């Protein structure tokens, strides 16, 4: 049997109900079950932190946002550029793709101290870590995307005597956009992870630093608030990516 789609009103209401039911359960059931507030503070306690220490949270939100955004742009741009080089030179791809692949197998957590040793304690190492974490998925997806035009499409461009440049801009690049955006969606979350991981290892600013400090001081309501903000940052980035995807990929 084919299930009918839910009515629109129900479809809007159900997710709100889902979230609300979990928040209510969290608010009342967890304390009732004896989970102490220093492990899981109630949603209202977390909300109160936003009112009480709003400026502290915001002051730590911006550095992370800037690092994640800068890392997102640099990492993805570098990946796209390298993918363009690789699809136009099979020799370079054969020579250097394994190197990139090996580099990708190094856990980012193991790499981060080295990056901080190189770039110091400012924003730069966090941007670098966020960029590296975005880089590989976009590189792989972009190579596949740029190669995804069918042989008939390439033959059509050959018959029309299109130059390499024209074939790139009018065929390969537009063909790659769906795959590029698939990896940008992933990168919108991982860039934030990269920035926060960087801040954990060496920083006194940013949501990552705030998470570490709050954990050591048992300020779990502040810790949760920082987590909520990090996730909000990812959601904002994701929404931006989805917005441009809808504008640019109309098929």
């Amino acid at each position, binding site marked *: 049997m084919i299930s009918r789609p839910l009515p629109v009103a129900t479809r809007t209401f159900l997710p709100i109900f889902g979230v609300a039911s979990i928040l209510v359960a969290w608010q009342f059931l967890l304390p009732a079950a004896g989970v102490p507030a220093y492990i899981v503070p109630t949603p209202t306690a977390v909300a109160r932190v936003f009112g009480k220490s709003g400026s502290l949270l915001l002051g730590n939100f911006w550095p992370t946002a800037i690092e994640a955004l800068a890392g997102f742009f640099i990492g993805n741009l570098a990946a796209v550029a390298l993918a363009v080089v690789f699809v136009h030179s099979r020799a370079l791809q054969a020579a250097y793709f394994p190197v990139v692949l090996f580099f990708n197998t190094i856990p980012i957590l193991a790499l981060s101290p080295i990056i901080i040793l190189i770039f110091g304690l400012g924003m730069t190492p966090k941007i670098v870590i966020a960029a590296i974490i975005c880089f590989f998925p976009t590189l792989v997806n972009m190579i596949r995307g740029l190669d995804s035009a069918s042989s008939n499409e390439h033959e*059509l461009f050959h*018959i029309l*005597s299109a130059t390499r440049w024209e074939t790139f801009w*009018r065929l390969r690049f537009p063909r790659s956009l769906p795959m590029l955006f698939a990896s940008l969606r992933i990168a919108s979350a991982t860039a934030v992870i990269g920035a926060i991981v960087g801040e954990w290892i060496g920083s006194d600013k940013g949501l990552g630093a705030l998470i570490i400090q709050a954990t050591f001081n048992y300020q779990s309501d502040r810790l949760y608030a920082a987590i909520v903000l990090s996730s909000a940052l990812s959601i904002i980035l994701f929404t931006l990516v989805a917005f441009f995807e809808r504008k640019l990929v109309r098929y």
Partner: protein
Amino acid sequence: MSGVHSTPLAIEARKLEIGYRGEHTDVTVLTGLDLEVETGQFVCILGPSGCGKSTLLRVVADLLVPLSGQISVLGETPHAIRGRRDVGFVFQDAALLPWRTVRENIRLPLAVGRHSLTREVADKTDELLAMMGLSAFADRHPHQLSGGQRQRVAIARALLGEPRVLLMDEPFGALDEITRDRLNDELLNLWRRTRTTILFVTHSIAEAVYLGERVVVLAANPGRLVADIDIRPVKDHGNRCLREDPAIIAKMAELRQALERAS
């Protein structure tokens, strides 16, 4: 050219060997082909899978270099003629670019490559849209079209540069029979008006006889020409016929026999 003909032949092949160069040995797909196609002729190339009929079109379109032998298109090599937009190609899968609208797809030949197509040609888009019954769909994207409509767009795109030779590689092979019949009639009307030389590859005997003035039959293993049958005697001057005409059905039987003898 030989000078015997008043107009150069649209296509002339001599001892043509077509295949793919391998590391050690070449794989021959079509062997010893001699073929002359007069300007303005509608020729169908009929044969089973693997007979090299599509490969032949690819050689004419300069997508593949023959292993040996001569081929000329409008008196020149395929390579020399390619840049001039004198040869149009229609693929079986339409090969439309999904991010371009119908109008933009038809205008692709203006957007790429060095060409001498003028503003007038660009203004012909609306005419082509009307001719192919696509005016209402000009601003749609390919995924919003039916299979038959997509193939009409592909034909319009191939016609934009007013090519003197139109190569069609099983263009209606993936369509349902009703749509295919209708597009066959539209293509014949188009050919009567433009008298473009058409090389039409198909594996349907009925389609070959209905469309062609002449049917070239190829056999597989190895790919070779086994029959070259004139259909004009059973058609009127406009290359018109009825599908049920006994003379047409007799021609179909003749083609089927030629194919069976060869296999």
